[in-house]
């Protein structure tokens, strides 16, 4: 390595080594920065999902995600420091401040260790929350106040008791230690570990502090109730019995004689370690013992008829209908599926009037019927009362005893069908204009199409429009309050703009090739981002189905509150416009801002890479043997070229750099070559200088291409133009980028400007984002797939080759348009034969 390196660089051996090593270090820092950026955006997506989902989430997950977020931001700042020689060190105090503020909000929310009695008689003392009582018991105690004496006398062995149980039996530390080894992707190990813990719990005994009050209460109940009354012992875990619960994961034990209640409680406690429950808690980001297990002890009611009632019909989501099912005997047979229940529906409106009972459908073929009309109404009324008490649609387990008393055994918030997250079939009767892409933000919306080139490019009058863009750049976030939907030809789901779309609730779909062509401006369309479809017109059924999700979970209360509290420090993007003076560390109000700032500055540093290591130390390099319109030397950065066995010449085939190959393919394309092969110079190399002013010393400078397998940084002078092209083309569309800077040189002012307009016009036509200022053009093309990027680079290569031929032309304005069109049509002759410009 050392020998060919020395042939590439001039200056002393030490200087060469240092210069080259410096280059490598910066490239390496850039790649690490990109990786941290991606990681950050993925974590951001996760945190947002936690904030907006109705399901439970754990402190552990929240803390760990936030810590990792901070780590990525810090890593990015460090890498930027390497790229910029510490120019942006003002970022570190900003990052520290944000970290401290986030930590403060986290600490505020996170409670102390749970305090509370080991045994709670429902309806006495308190009020106690779900954290101490567990979900089932907490719901019941709410209902106790709501529906009165229809709930059987119950007591609960609290989650505090569970914690004492684990400590007393020496299990607590084991759980914590083993939890750290668990991985939802390693189910075998998870199963083994869970079973081990379960066995340990089953072998344990209730500590005296729990056993005494439990025994006392059971004895009291036995004295009050008929002889021979048995008990049911049910799990009442924190995190359970919310709409997205651990339903079915824990245990219920029926027909427990008074003397065996304590043993049954231990069994229920052990159920905390059921493997699937452990898996669910792990996946949702809960810590080892962040949730707890309570045991709900109730006297058994020998039901004559039992069932489950829904205060809203779950199949039709019809709010006016109560639906329930009933079986003879205990409800267990129903939920087991061993007996087919009878179904009943009751119109809710009938419950308010004292008159006619509601219709009862499918009353079953039993004779005599299971329930009388008045009993049917009472069950329905019970469900509705439960709904009122819980504040949300409820499903209720009920039982009717021999004496005709109706008892409510269990109730929980009902999971209403959430908005569809799977792709669904196209809606019939509407024309599908395009299909494809990936949903970046779910939902559907309709409005007139506007082709948007930049964040300030909003249509007039100010209606809520569907923004269709070439590329999902972060600055488009400015649009979001105005746009009702977003369609981008290029862009990724884990991107700044996707994150902000989700935060604003704007449906967005990215990666939709050809969107600009297929969606005409002004056309009213409906974007179904979830399914990746755009229809012509307003699709009523889709838009009507857009119902806001009901927040049904209450158990994640303190975690979600803390999360919502600190979201403003993390998620929102305030820094949108890189050219604004507030685009600075002091303007960063969230971690997202910091990341955006760093990303932007890192790109700028990479663009000026060759100069940054001290001009004049690069010379030599590898020469390409194919025809290129200028002298270009290639300098590999660790990869990008298959090195020749000896000498300095390589063929295009030996270039392994993906972006370089594509660009050079365009540059060397015969279609953009003028007339015939260029003359060889005396040294035998194909070295081409364009333009008539071959004697100009400026033009004697070769162009430089720094390459690696995925990266290209090319700077060159072609005739009078100065051009820089930088590209990163890899497997991850989010990282991919082409950046071009083009500045006219020599010639008169107006000609230079027209040349710039030609270049800008072509680039716009190719789908680049272009900024034109006088004779200066800067353009980017980003976030495409490898193929898209390669095609873009190839076209760019052709453009650069053409532009090299343009010194003599551009007499007047109308010609600019003519040449732009010619190029975009592939009619290069227009440009190449331009000494004899045809009339437009």
């Amino acid at each position, binding site marked *: 390595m050392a020998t060919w390196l020395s042939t590439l660089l001039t200056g002393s051996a030490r200087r060469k080594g240092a210069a080259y090593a410096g280059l490598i270090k910066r490239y390496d820092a850039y790649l690490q920065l990109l990786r941290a950026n991606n990681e950050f955006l993925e974590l951001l997506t996760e945190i947002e999902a936690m904030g907006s989902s109705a399901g439970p989430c754990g402190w552990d997950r929240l803390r760990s995600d936030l810590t990792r977020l901070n*780590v990525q931001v810090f890593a990015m700042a460090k890498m930027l420091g390497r790229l910029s020689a510490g120019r942006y060190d003002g970022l570190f105090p900003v990052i520290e401040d944000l970290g401290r503020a986030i930590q403060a909000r986290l600490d505020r929310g996170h409670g102390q260790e749970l305090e509370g009695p080991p045994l709670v008689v429902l309806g006495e003392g308190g009020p106690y929350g779900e954290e101490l009582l567990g979900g089932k018991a907490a719901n019941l105690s709410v209902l106790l106040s709501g529906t009165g004496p229809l709930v059987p006398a119950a007591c609960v062995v609290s989650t505090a008791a569970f914690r004492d149980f684990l400590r007393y039996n020496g299990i607590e530390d084991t759980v914590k230690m083993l939890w750290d080894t668990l991985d939802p992707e390693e189910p075998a190990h998870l199963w083994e570990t869970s079973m081990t813990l379960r066995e340990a719990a089953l072998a344990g005994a209730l500590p005296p502090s729990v056993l005494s009050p439990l025994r006392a209460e059971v004895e009291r109940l036995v004295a009050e109730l008929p002889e021979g009354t048995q008990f049911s012992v049910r799990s009442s875990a924190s995190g359970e019995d919310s709409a997205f619960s651990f339903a079915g994961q824990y245990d219920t034990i029926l027909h427990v004689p008074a003397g065996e209640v304590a043993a049954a409680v231990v069994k229920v406690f052990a159920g905390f370690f059921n493997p699937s429950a452990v898996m669910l808690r792990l996946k949702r980001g809960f810590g080892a013992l962040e949730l707890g297990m309570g045991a709900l002890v109730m006297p058994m009611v020998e039901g004559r008829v039992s069932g489950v009632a829904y205060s809203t019909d779950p199949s039709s989501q019809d709010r006016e209908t109560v639906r329930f099912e009933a079986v003879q005997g205990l409800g267990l047979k129903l939920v087991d599926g061993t007996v087919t229940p009878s179904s009943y529906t009751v119109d809710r409106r009938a419950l308010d009037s004292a008159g006619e009972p509601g219709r009862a459908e499918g009353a079953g073929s039993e004779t005599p019927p299971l329930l009388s009309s008045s009993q049917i109404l009472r069950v329905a009324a019970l469900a509705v009362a439960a709904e009122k008490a819980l504040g949300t649609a409820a499903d209720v387990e009920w039982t009717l005893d021999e004496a005709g008393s109706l008892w409510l055994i269990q109730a929980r918030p009902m999971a209403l069908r959430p908005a569809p997250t799977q792709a669904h079939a196209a809606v019939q009767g509407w024309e599908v204009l395009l299909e494809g892409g990936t949903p970046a933000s779910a939902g559907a919306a309709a409005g007139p199409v506007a082709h948007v080139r930049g964040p300030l490019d909003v249509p007039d009058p100010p209606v809520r429009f569907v923004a269709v863009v070439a590329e999902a750049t972060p600055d488009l976030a400015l649009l979001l309050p105005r746009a009702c939907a977003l369609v981008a030809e290029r862009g990724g789901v884990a991107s700044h703009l996707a994150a902000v779309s989700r935060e604003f609730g704007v449906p967005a779909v990215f990666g939709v090739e050809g969107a600009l062509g297929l969606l005409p401006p002004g056309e009213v369309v409906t974007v179904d981002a979830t399914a990746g479809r755009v229809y012509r017109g307003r699709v009523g059924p889709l838009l009507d189905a857009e119902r806001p999700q009901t927040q049904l979970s209450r158990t994640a209360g303190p975690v979600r509150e803390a999360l919502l509290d600190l979201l403003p420090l993390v998620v929102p993007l305030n820094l949108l416009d890189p050219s604004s003076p507030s685009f600075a560390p002091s303007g960063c109000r969230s971690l997202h801002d910091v990341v955006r700032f760093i990303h932007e500055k890192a790109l700028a540093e990479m663009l000026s890479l060759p100069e940054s290591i001290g001009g004049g130390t690069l010379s030599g390099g590898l020469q390409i043997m194919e025809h290129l319109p200028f002298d270009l030397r290639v300098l590999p950065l660790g990869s990008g070229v298959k090195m020749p066995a000896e000498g300095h010449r390589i063929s295009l085939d030996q270039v392994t750099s993906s972006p370089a190959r594509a660009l050079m393919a365009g540059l060397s394309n015969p279609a953009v070559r003028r007339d015939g092969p260029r003359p060889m110079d005396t040294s035998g190399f194909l070295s081409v200088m364009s333009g008539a002013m071959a004697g100009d010393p400026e033009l004697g400078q070769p162009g430089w291409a720094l390459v690696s397998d995925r990266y290209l940084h090319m700077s060159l002078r072609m005739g009078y133009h100065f051009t820089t092209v930088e590209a990163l083309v890899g497997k991850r569309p989010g990282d991919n980028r082409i950046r071009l800077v083009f500045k006219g040189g020599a010639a008169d002012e107006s000609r230079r400007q027209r040349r710039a307009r030609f270049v800008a016009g072509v680039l716009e036509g190719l789908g680049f984002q272009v900024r034109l200022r006088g004779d200066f053009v800067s353009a980017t093309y980003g976030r495409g797939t490898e193929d898209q990027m390669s095609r873009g680079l190839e076209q760019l290569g052709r453009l650069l080759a053409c532009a090299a031929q343009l010194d003599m032309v551009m007499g007047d304005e109308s010609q600019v348009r003519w040449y732009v069109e010619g190029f975009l049509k592939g009619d290069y002759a227009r440009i190449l034969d331009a000494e004899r410009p045809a009339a437009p």
Partner: protein
Amino acid sequence: MADAIRVLLVDDEPVFVDTMSKVLKARGYGVGAAAGGVEALEELRFNRYDVVVLDLRMPGMDGIETLERIRKQDPLLPVILLSGHADMSKAVEAMQHGAVDYMLKPAPVDKLCERIRSAIEHRNILEELAPPPGR
């Protein structure tokens, strides 16, 4: 496998080391283990490793000090920090001392392997151009 990536696990909890070793070996990694900082440094002097996965909290020489010493001994050896507790200031401290990443337990194995792979990739780039001392 001659080309297997060799990982050194440094953690004082034998259960964790056992489990993680098994899982990593099953994915084709070579795994070595050390129960603490001192042992880790010894191990690194005598055996070749491609990456170190280091627990932050250990009795005796703690994670940060171990990290510092490893970096001094072999600046090109990537170190990934694992911790059972989310502590933002410790995480930043670790990054300042040159850890390539900071992950929290329980760490999904896929993520850990991905980190290891990308750490190696970067090391390869650097090594090609700046050969380590002694070569």
